[in-house]
């Protein structure tokens, strides 16, 4: 293990820019750690070592000649295996795409390559970013680096595990109901679901068009901001992509949250889905940190969680079925059982039912924005700490409530950051939600919190656990 594996993007970028660190040296450190330890976590499904070495060498030469073109220049990263990568297989973890090699990069991969990043490989996901964890798909499920018996959550499971384990400082995931924020929460890192339409989904295998978001995961909020700066922007090839000005996200990280008004959805937390006592205590402690920094906290009332879940999941099951209909009709055996269960009934959803759910989404999104107009951010736990890595009854997708899904319905930016550690060592999580396209305030709050707390000083110890 090398200390290089635990540099943040911001730290590595500064060292590279001042010629104190070589992108080749940095890349070799990550490749060595992945080679030595990823058999414990299965966070990568494809490693692109030779390509990474070539990109690192090219980055080093360019930086030596003319300086870095971005803060990601010479920095390694990886991608959830539903982002198309030209010439590199993109499987979605599914037997259906075992031999799928795209001929064109996804928009985000184009942006990261143009920024001089070094692609290490592709991360494990739940099948097609929806069904899992599964043991009957193309690759085994990823494991949580804080405890291998525990789940890294999903669906960007390998992405969360890889960053927490020091296999990569950066990765991109996708989030349709919580799939960036939940792995970030389970693995104790930062993960941002940007505003719907801020980041292009072109070249990303769809889960549910109307709720899909692409976004970054990294160890710190500052690193998430650096990644967002690279991938945010209008892409006319994604019809859902918004043409809006892109601010300087790093410049927004002032550390100042004095006067910030924080809304807490108390009816969710007290009546509808009360968190466990330890999670509640961690959340209250996080709010106290913000109070000590000069923020104010007030209760807000949002529509019931169940309404968000019902609308989103009805829409999603219909869209998922449409996306996979041909394969469900002709070769259903190639789906993992978890995903097949979760999408097959979408074929029986009538058009009227789908459109009524979309109308309900309109109402819920309006209600969400009305509440957001009264506060600067919302805060709530992202999830409970990770559970054991074991099969989840597939019906639970339809029955459990979620603190993450409402912000896919509303489209609002939502960041998960680490907010401490439970008695068993697994991370607690804090979710910070902003107004539409106000990523700056969300990131500012997350960064200020991380800098006011000690949680970023602690890393999972993979080797010690294995040799204990």
């Amino acid at each position: 293990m090398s200390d290089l594996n635990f540099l943040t993007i911001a730290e590595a970028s500064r060292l590279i820019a001042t010629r104190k660190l070589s992108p080749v040296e940095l890349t070799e450190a990550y490749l060595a750690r992945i080679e030595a330890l990823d058999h414990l976590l299965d966070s990568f499904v494809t490693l692109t070592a030779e390509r990474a070495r070539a990109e690192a060498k090219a980055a080093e030469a360019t930086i030596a000649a003319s300086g870095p073109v971005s803060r990601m220049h010479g920095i390694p990263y990886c991608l959830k295996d539903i982002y198309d990568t030209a010439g590199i297989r993109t499987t979605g973890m599914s037997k259906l795409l075992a031999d799928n090699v795209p001929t064109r990069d996804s928009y985000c991969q184009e942006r990261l390559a143009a920024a001089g990043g070094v692609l290490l490989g592709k991360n494990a996901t739940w099948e097609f970013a929806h069904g899992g964890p599964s043991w009957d798909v193309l690759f085994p499920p990823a494991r949580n680096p804080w405890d291998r018996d525990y789940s890294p959550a999903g669906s960007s499971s390998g992405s969360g595990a890889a960053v927490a384990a020091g296999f990569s400082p950066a990765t991109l995931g996708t989030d349709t109901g919580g799939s960036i924020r939940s792995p970030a929460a389970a693995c104790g890192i930062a993960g941002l679901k940007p505003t719907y339409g801020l980041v292009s989904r072109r070249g990303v295998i769809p889960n549910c068009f109307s709720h899909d978001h692409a976004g970054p995961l990294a160890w710190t909020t500052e690193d998430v901001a650096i990644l967002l700066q690279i991938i945010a922007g209008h892409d006319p090839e994604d019809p859902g992509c918004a043409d809006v000005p892109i601010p300087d996200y790093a410049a927004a990280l002032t550390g100042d949250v004095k006067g910030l008004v924080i809304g807490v959805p108390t009816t969710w937390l007290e009546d509808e889905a009360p968190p466990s006592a330890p999670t509640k205590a961690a959340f209250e402690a996080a709010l106290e940190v913000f109070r000590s920094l000069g923020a104010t906290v007030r209760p807000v009332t949002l529509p019931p969680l169940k309404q968000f879940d019902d609308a989103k999941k009805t829409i999603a099951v219909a869209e998922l079925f449409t996306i996979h209909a041909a394969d469900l009709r002709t070769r259903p055996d190639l789906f993992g059982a978890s995903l097949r269960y979760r999408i097959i009934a979408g074929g029986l959803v009538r058009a009227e039912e789908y459109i009524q759910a979309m109308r309900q989404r309109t109402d819920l999104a309006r209600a969400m924005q009305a509440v957001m107009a009264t506060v600067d951010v919302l805060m709530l736990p992202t999830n409970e700490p990770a559970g054991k890595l074991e099969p989840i009854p597939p019906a639970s997708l339809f029955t459990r409530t979620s603190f993450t899904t409402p912000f896919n319905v509303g489209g609002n930016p939502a960041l998960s950051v680490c907010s401490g550690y439970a008695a068993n060592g697994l991370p607690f999580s804090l979710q910070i939600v902003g107004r539409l396209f106000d990523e700056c305030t969300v990131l500012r709050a997350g960064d200020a919190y991380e800098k006011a707390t000690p949680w970023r000083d602690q890393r999972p110890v993979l080797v010690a656990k294995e040799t204990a």
Partner: protein
Amino acid sequence: MTAMPTNDEIALLARQAGLDLKPEYFQELVDAYGNVRRMIDRIPTGRPRGDEPAHVFVPTKFLPVTE
């Protein structure tokens, strides 16, 4: 709540959806559809005619791309 369709009715709906499922997958469908049906039944209906769904067609998104 809408009455849950019988297995025969679900089989008909499945055929209309182009699904010709072996018995164990059909049972998966019956179980999954029960969950989906309960969600759908909770979604409000009886809306004004003019209520737009969350996705509408935005023609400017389909203008030719100019570099």
